[in-house]
């Protein structure tokens, strides 16, 4: 979950890292007033989570006479569908150069890693000489002399080493204290012997860490680019990803569902959604999952069929069947449902597989002995419809 630049900078400031003086504004009037406060000239930055703002013309240097007009223009803009809802109006910083600093988690070692480069700015990632890296032992943390050695490896010398190292230690502190998976400052303005100034802040938080950070808990649901069903699902403890295909999927387990979507694609269909229970698999959650898929089928004309895949061993089959029956009783499916249901061990203690299948058949679900047949049947329905 990515934070807006203004929120990221707030975290940096709290950790003692220098950031430009600025105001968050929501209207052209506020923007003009902030420019006045800054003595006339300012940098105006659209607050969207997506990258590439500079190239899209969403970061502008303005004088006070044009402030309101530019602010109005930016506030009406969108970047890849994300509307601009606020602007950060900042002092412009005179810099000797643009550096790069970041802390993230290395996918292979599973350890935090600090990155530093004296060549920041646009396209730092595609530079032929990549940033210097330092793996951090999380049992020990990042100390100032570690950070100093990293900056030295990046080519920095002299008094600036001290403040640059302190800034990097500050980034690691932001990373740890907020359960971030990425804290990135690009550009980090070189101010000679003065502490470097964070020109931007990209802070990506770990959604699994939100239980420790109530201040960010509602932030994800506020993302205006979320599909309404995605937002609804998130509030119900279900992971739902909306896709633009013709075959909706009602399945459990992230890996099995991904494999099912891939199989649909492989056989010539196009999946319309992903679905997974995030918070356990109680009867309520299962019912919500069925509901979400029925709503998708009801509201998206492109959906021609649903594939149902249930394999349970620990979760009682009865929980799923009752949840599905309740949901289908209230809202019968607009399109045919083809599926495969398997249950074993503890799952069939309170309801046998035959009973479960019989109930689902009553609600019009067509069941097959294996999942591939169900997929092929659903794809055939979608084809006929074309």
């Amino acid at each position, binding site marked *: 979950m990515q934070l807006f630049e203004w929120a990221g900078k707030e975290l940096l400031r709290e950790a003692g890292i220098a950031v430009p003086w600025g105001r968050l504004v929501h209207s052209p009037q506020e923007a003009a007033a902030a420019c006045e406060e800054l003595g006339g000239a300012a940098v105006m930055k659209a607050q969207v989570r997506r990258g590439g703002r500079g190239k899209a013309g969403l970061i502008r240097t303005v004088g006070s006479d044009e402030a309101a007009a530019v602010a109005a223009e930016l506030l009406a803009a969108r970047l890849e569908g994300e509307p601009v809802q606020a602007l950060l109006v900042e002092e412009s910083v005179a810099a000797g150069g643009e550096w790069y600093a970041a802390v993230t*988690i290395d*996918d*292979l070692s*599973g*350890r*935090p890693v600090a990155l530093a480069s004296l060549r920041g700015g646009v396209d730092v990632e595609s530079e032929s000489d990549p940033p210097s890296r330092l793996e951090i*032992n*999380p*049992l020990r943390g990042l100390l100032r002399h570690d950070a100093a050695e990293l900056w030295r490896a990046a080519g920095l010398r002299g008094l600036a080493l001290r403040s640059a190292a302190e800034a990097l230690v500050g980034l690691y502190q932001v990373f*740890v204290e907020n*359960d971030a*998976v990425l804290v990135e400052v690009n550009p980090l303005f070189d101010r000679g012997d003065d502490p470097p100034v964070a020109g931007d802040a990209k802070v990506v938080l*770990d*959604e*699994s*860490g939100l*239980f*420790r950070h109530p201040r960010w808990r509602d932030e994800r649901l506020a993302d205006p680019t979320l599909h309404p069903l995605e937002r609804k699902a998130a509030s119900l403890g279900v*992971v739902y*990803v909306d*896709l633009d295909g013709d075959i909706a999927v009602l399945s*459990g*387990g*992230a*890996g*099995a*569902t*991904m*494999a099912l*979507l*891939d*199989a649909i*694609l*492989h*056989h010539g269909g196009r*999946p319309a959604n*992903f679905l*997974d229970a*995030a918070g356990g698999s109680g009867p309520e959650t299962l019912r919500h999952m069925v509901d979400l898929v029925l709503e998708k089928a009801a509201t998206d004309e492109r959906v021609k069929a649903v594939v149902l895949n249930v*394999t349970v*061993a*620990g979760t009682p089959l009865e929980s799923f069947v009752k949840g599905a029956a309740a949901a289908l009783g209230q809202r019968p499916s607009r399109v045919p449902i083809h599926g495969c249901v*398997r249950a*074993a*061990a*503890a799952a069939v203690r309170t309801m046998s597989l035959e009973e479960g299948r019989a109930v689902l058949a009553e609600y019009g679900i067509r069941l097959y002995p294996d999942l*591939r047949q169900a997929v092929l049947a659903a794809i055939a329905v979608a084809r006929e419809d074309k």
Partner: protein
Amino acid sequence: MAILVSQETRLLVMGISGRYARNQVREMMRYGSRVVAGVTLGRGGEAVEEVPVYDTVREAQQEHTAEAALMYVPAPGVREAAVEVLEGGLRLVVIVTEGVPAQDSAYIRALADERGAWVVGPNTAGLIAPGQCLVGSVPPIYTMPGPVGLLSRSGTLAFEVTRSLTEAGLGQSTVVAIGGDAVIGKNPAAYLQAFEDDPATAVVVMLGEVGGQKEHEAAAVVARMSKPVVALIVGRSVPAGKTMGHAGALIARQDQGAEAKEQVLRDAGCLIAETLWDIPALVRQALGPQEATR
């Protein structure tokens, strides 16, 4: 033989008093797993399925010297519980919990590495050595003893594929769900090496996902293995920047997509499955006619 566990493995269950844990313990013991102790703070002196419960790991270890821990602990408590079992000298730690913060997992992994312990998960359904030992919730009914070693980022996909292998008469040496998170105790590469070293394993099935570089690292191990590896990478339809259930399945760069991973694995000598249903045939092909009917 198998990897990580055997008939002899003495198990300790953290958080044994919860309802879900109780059910799992019952299933594991029915299968023949040796659950020797449970730990739930405040429940010391009680018993679950005749397994004695202790307040702390240290107390349990004074009586039992368990070697493997299975953790049913809510996400906020996982880091501390893992430190407790690692300091208790357990060499295998299976963390079932979903939603463990990545930095907690990084901390646990670093501590485990320091102590020479092996962490499975977090976010795992566990593992089974068919006919020997069940740790977690892999349905035994889907398994049978045999020469296939299977590792999977996903529990549910491991179940599906294992069931299809068993139906095809292809038994397994060990089936292990290694964890769906971005930071897990051991990467696929480590499991591949363990299967290579296991005399009971003749062929390996690796079920991977899009996101990260772990399959690239795994390819380097495959290239020097003597045993054939069949691989499936799922997540072809994951849009870049979105996660589908598993925190690890996030495509941040081009080389983290399914096609790129398949290419790297194919170059290393893997047999690549196009869908999950192709796996039994590929395993049979990899084993050769004698092995498969052994």
